[in-house]
């Protein structure tokens, strides 16, 4: 291996003392990334808030959908700013925004995680099958991926929703349906190159069947980029779900949901800044920390700076 500029020498590494699993190494690298660790901690907090949203409701004494027309609205019928009673203020129907933001986290994280998992599982299965089996399987699946990728997302979403009405399940399915193809395409590309590796050939020469090779040899080697992609996909899904809700295509009211809240605040942002600002910040902040974590995960799996280059 030769390079015209070297940052480090090419060395034959002798056996090290302990067996270091590639996953363990990646985790250690992630742990050293302070930004990623802080983001991870914040994500845990957000999760806890979502899980314990009823506790938040109990503590404030305000259930999420309860409208407090007397205490929660001004005499003119406008939302109240943040105060001792309503820490985040109220919305146009006198509901506690703090509690609604907490409950909104459930929707965002729930859809974010479930839709992403669905996407990834389907995408990986199809990508591995297409890439590894080749032939007509690949031709059919690859064309399918192309077709799905060329469908217009928004139009289809609107069409589906107008047919069946907004619902959480539909949101998850719609998002999943449109995202699996990107994952599949990436995975297929990876698998095409892994297929040519000698260890796959070795497995064949031992008599392993296709299924076993895909599960035992190919899959673990695509997992790393898949994990990176997944972590970076979650914030995208969260934003998409919020956008769908904003357009009225996602959740049925009165369920608390960040996108929906932002939509409801449209007419009030001049008078009641907190109505739009606070759910908006929750959304932005959540996607931000997921993105930061995703960057850290990607660096942990694929470090380039100051590494010993092995032959």
């Amino acid at each position, binding site marked *: 291996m030769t390079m015209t500029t070297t940052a480090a020498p090419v060395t*034959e*590494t*002798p*056996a*090290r003392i*302990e*067996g*270091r*699993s*590639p996953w363990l190494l990646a985790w250690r690298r992630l742990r050293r990334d302070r930004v990623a660790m802080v983001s991870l901690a914040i994500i845990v907090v957000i999760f806890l808030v979502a899980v314990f949203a009823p506790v938040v409701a109990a503590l404030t004494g305000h259930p999420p959908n309860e409208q407090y027309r007397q205490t929660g609205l001004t005499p003119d019928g406008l939302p109240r700013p943040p105060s001792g009673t309503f820490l985040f203020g109220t919305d146009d129907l006198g509901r506690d925004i703090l509690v609604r933001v907490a409950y909104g986290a459930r929707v965002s994280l729930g859809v974010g995680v479930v839709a992403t998992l669905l996407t990834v599982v389907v995408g990986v299965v199809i990508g591995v099958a297409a890439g590894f089996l080749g032939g007509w399987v690949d*031709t059919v699946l690859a064309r399918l991926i192309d077709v799905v990728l060329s469908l217009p997302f928004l139009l289809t979403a609107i069409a589906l929703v107008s047919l069946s009405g907004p619902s959480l399940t539909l949101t998850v399915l719609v998002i999943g349906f449109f995202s699996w193809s990107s994952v599949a395409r990436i995975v297929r590309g990876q698998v095409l190159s892994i297929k040519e*590796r*000698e*260890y796959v*050939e*070795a*497995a*064949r*020469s*031992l*008599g*392993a*069947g296709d299924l*076993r090779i895909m599960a*035992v*040899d190919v899959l*673990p*080697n695509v*997992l790393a980029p898949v994990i990176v992609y997944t972590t970076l996909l979650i914030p995208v899904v969260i934003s998409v779900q919020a956008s769908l809700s904003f357009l009225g295509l996602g959740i049925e009211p009165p369920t608390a949901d960040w996108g929906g809240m932002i939509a409801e605040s449209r007419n009030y942002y001049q008078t009641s800044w907190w109505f739009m600002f606070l759910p908006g910040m929750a959304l932005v902040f959540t996607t931000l920390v997921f993105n930061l974590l995703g960057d850290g995960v990607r660096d942990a799996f694929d470090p380039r700076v100051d590494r010993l280059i*092995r*032959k």
Partner: protein
Amino acid sequence: MNRSHETEPLLRAVDVFKSFPVNKTGLFSRNADLLRAVDGVSLEIYPGETLGLVGETGCGKSTLARCLTRLHHLSAGTVQFEGRDISSLSRRELRPLRREIQMIFQDPYGSLNPRRRVGSIIGDAFAIHGIEDSSSRKRRVQELMELVGLNPEHYNRFPADFSGGQRQRIGVARALALRPKLIVCDEPVSSLDVSIQAQVINLLLDLQKDLHLTYLFISHDLSVIRHVSDRIAVMYLGKIVETAAADVVFDSTRHPYTRSLLSALPPADPDAADARERIVLVGDLPSPVNPPLGCRFHPRCPKAQEDCAAVDPPLAPVLADPPEHLTACLHPVELDEDLSATDPAIVDPSLLNSLGTEQGGLP
């Protein structure tokens, strides 16, 4: 290392052909060019011996190896293992055969799955064929590790924790798991440092003796081939050009290509290096997509004559050679013939330089 031609060959290949389509211009292209990787090869491997297969890049030796182990489908021809025709067996029918024929690969860094533990890699064969339950599996794997000179306590480590030489040992252990009869070693030491190469070569030879293995040993390194082989087959552009016992190929070379291969190898000895015959071949290896007509080597051959362009010489004994020494040449090299002074009758026009004269002296 004994071989006897009274016994039946363990593996026999008859007129094996393997081509790959290249430059497909569409899904249903009929204009695909054919890369003729293996173009009519017949050989035999006898139990207990090492057949060395030597040739340069593009000669088809790796493809041939994969045809013989049925990792590829044959385009034509037959392969027999222990007398049984395995040429067109389906993958399922081949599975039991996998226990008899195994392979060791060249690249110590690419032939082991980086995400699997070494114990799992070596024991893969047991899992695939459902042999041994998991408790005895670990014991068997550790036995194999010891056999190849690895510390059995490193069972749970990953390939990245081992050096190149150790990784090759892991590959050897993996191949031995099913106690095969024939092992195809595809350039097993080419990627290793010289001092480690020697360790692995010793290991392979020791194992052969102790476990009664038969090897097909592929390499481009002539000194390694000479050291390990009982018999040698030399390949060029998809065909075998010469085959004989190892010492015979080196000392009584008949084919001009074999001769130039030997002369190109610089000996690690200044006096020998200065004194040796130098045949420097002109030009590049032709593409296996369009091999030359007639004898494939004739455009670069220092002994080429008119008939070489017309006839593809058969692989047969030439001059007064014994029946085990086969050469595919119409004008084979005589003993003590000095090829560095020969002036070939045919000159490939594409090798003339821009001034229109032959590149006298410059290869």
